């Protein structure tokens, strides 16, 4: 096989210790948006948040939030 692809999910975060990871998903998404806004798209630590919300969040939610951001109706300040 070619180089083994490392598969993983968002690591354990003590702030969200329970089975319900909704807040973890939403916080990772918001942190990604804030991180890229503050530090630019290529800032490496922002990739952690991108990987986290892509693993944790249902795609439908991400699409909904992205369209809300475009319309300016996203509920949280970025």
């Amino acid at each position, binding site marked *: 096989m070619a180089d083994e692809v490392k598969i993983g999910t968002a690591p*354990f975060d003590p702030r*969200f*210790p329970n089975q319900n990871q909704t807040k973890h998903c939403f916080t990772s998404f918001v942190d990604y948006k804030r991180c890229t806004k503050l530090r630019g798209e290529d800032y490496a630590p922002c990739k*952690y*948040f991108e990987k986290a919300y892509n693993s944790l969040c249902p795609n439908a939610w991400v699409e909904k939030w992205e369209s809300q951001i475009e319309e300016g109706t996203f509920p949280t300040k970025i």
Partner: protein
Amino acid sequence: MGKGIGLSGMTWTSMKKHTAVIPLYALCAAGAGLAGFYLWRLAAKSPEVTWNRKTNPEPWNAYENKQYKFLSSGRDYTEASPAPKYK
């Protein structure tokens, strides 16, 4: 106005006449105390509760390296949250 039962059950002297009720009162008070304590703990310490959204907008950040659960086998919470700080 009838005579009523007066302060029966609410004063120490009236309780002496029905001593079996005293453990009942004590356990009820203890149960109410535990329940009240747990409600206070939820209101004051829960990682998902904030009383002032201006000064504490993200209450879960207080638990980056401590444990809220009473019982969480085997997991070391003192390692900091893996999320990088970017601010």
